[in-house]
């Protein structure tokens, strides 16, 4: 029954125009960034290279597909949650708003399975968004800008990663980015269980992300103990894959915290959804 219900969820997501909004937005946003970098990319990266030019000489294709993909990811990963929440925040509350939740809840499928099918479908949609972002950023970037070594500026300084050493880092980076976005998906579905309108959970998800991001970036001691526990702190952990040496412990910690967030959000959703009086 879980599989059948999940198939239903895929059909519903595929039929909703808003589901394609995320894919279209990524296409347009990445397209704009690629166009801008193609038109005037060298002056853009000269901000980074200028401070090293007295000590280092840069040769070869610096502005290559790998660097472009990195820039795209850095620019967009923080904005993608809105595109994910736009669809996943509607999965339960949208049914309540439409009245179809009444019909679903009178069928011989448990509410837990009904909800889990929405989590699975939301997860698959999130994966599609991440894959599309990967295709647009890495593959299209390489087609337009060619390949080459990746130059990354992080807190420890300039890291240059060889071309042959980059592929697995992108796979790892995208996997952690997916886990972070999956947490956004779980959060919005969880909020969706508490609401009977479509907009509320989407707006609340974004408000929580903004609030947590502010708490995470505010250099105030009172938040020191909270900051490592916020999922937003670990949303940028994909970047850790582009450090040398690889901060394995830090990546593991991020993965554990994001997984715990997902489990807790799913459990809260199941608890709430099973006890919810469907009055809409």
């Amino acid at each position, binding site marked *: *029954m879980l599989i*059948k*219900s999940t*198939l*239903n969820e895929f*059909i*519903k997501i595929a*039929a*909703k*125009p808003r589901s394609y909004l995320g894919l279209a937005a990524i296409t347009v946003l990445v397209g704009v960034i690629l166009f801008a970098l193609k038109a005037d990319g060298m002056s853009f990266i000269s901000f980074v290279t200028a401070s090293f030019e007295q000590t280092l000489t840069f040769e070869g294709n610096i502005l290559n597909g790998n660097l472009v993909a990195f820039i795209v990811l850095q620019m967009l990963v923080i904005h993608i949650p809105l595109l994910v929440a736009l669809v996943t925040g509607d999965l339960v509350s949208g049914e309540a708003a*439409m*009245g*179809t939740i*009444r*019909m*679903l*809840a*009178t*069928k*011989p*499928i*448990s509410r837990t399975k*009904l909800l889990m099918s929405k989590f699975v479908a939301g997860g698959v949609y999130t994966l599609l968004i991440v894959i599309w972002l990967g295709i647009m950023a890495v593959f299209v970037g390489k087609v337009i800008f060619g390949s080459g070594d990746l130059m990354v500026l992080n807190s420890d300084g300039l890291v240059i990663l060889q071309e042959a050493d980059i592929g697995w880092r992108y796979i790892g980076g995208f996997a952690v980015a997916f886990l972070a976005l999956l947490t956004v998906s779980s959060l919005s579905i969880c909020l969706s269980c508490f609401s009977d309108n479509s907009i509320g959970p989407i707006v609340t998800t974004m408000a929580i992300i903004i609030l947590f991001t502010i708490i995470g970036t505010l250099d105030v001691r009172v938040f020191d103990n909270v900051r490592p526990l916020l999922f937003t702190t670990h949303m940028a952990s994909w970047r850790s894959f582009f450090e040398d040496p690889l901060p394995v412990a830090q990546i593991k910690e991020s993965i554990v915290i994001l997984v715990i967030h997902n489990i807790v959000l799913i459990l809260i959703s199941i608890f709430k959804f099973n*006890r919810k*009086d*469907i*009055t809409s």
Partner: protein
Amino acid sequence: MDTTEKMIEVNHLSKRFDSFEAVKDVSFTVNKGDVFGFLGPNGAGKSTTIRCMLSLITPTSGDVKLFGKFLASHRSEILKRVGCIIEKPDFYKYLSAERNLEIFARISGVDSNRKDIHRMLDFVGLNGREKHKVSGFSHGMKQRLGIAQSLLHNPDMIILDEPTTGLDPQGIIDIRNLILQLSREQNKTILLSSHQLSEIEIIANRMVIINRGVTVIEGEVAHLLNAQELIVRMEVNDVALTLSLLKEEFAQIIVQREEGNVLHFSVNRNHIPDLIKKCVARDILIYAIESKRKLEDYFIQMVTN
């Protein structure tokens, strides 16, 4: 020994939403093969009771048994045998009728193929509309589609919550005929909620009336709507003379109230011709005489209040 199979048993059901008690004490029984009228004015607690019967709402107290099993402990098993429409049927507007039915069939525990779905759409008079999006459907078409989705898994029992609300007269007749067809040809047990006594009278064989969250009366429709016992409203020129006549000649008549020249009393239908004759014999002028069945009068009072 009572050998009638009980399909629904609602026992002392109550439901409180914060400080508001939507259902206080509702009890009734539906037998196999019944077309059971669930009657009450708007706000009586019908929809809340039905939602409790379908596990949409958890009752505050009391219990619901369907097919002899407690809903709370046999939910999936029971719901496999129930088809329903709660208030208005809502569908995925962006999907076609066919796709909507596929979705509901899939989680109803049956593997309905396209042929079954088309047959069902044909049964409810929506043939040719299979590929049309529900967003373009009228209210009547959605009601028909709702009935189709409630029948997809061939349930033993169908629960319809105000299925004719918002329909035009022809739509009401069509839905009514569809319900009668399901009862007579497929021997389905049907619970039909309504706030219109006339509708229940035409379709149902048994009924319960609830008001303000409490069961008022339950029984056979023919018995409850006894056509012999009437409430009469009679307008005369001389009330005092008429009261004296009633006292002398019709001791069994109880006058309920007087309003100017109008008397309200209950009487057996067979006594009315004699009453008119004797009024004429005593020169009492009758300007108007209207009769209503007792329960009908009571129900109209409930709705009016």
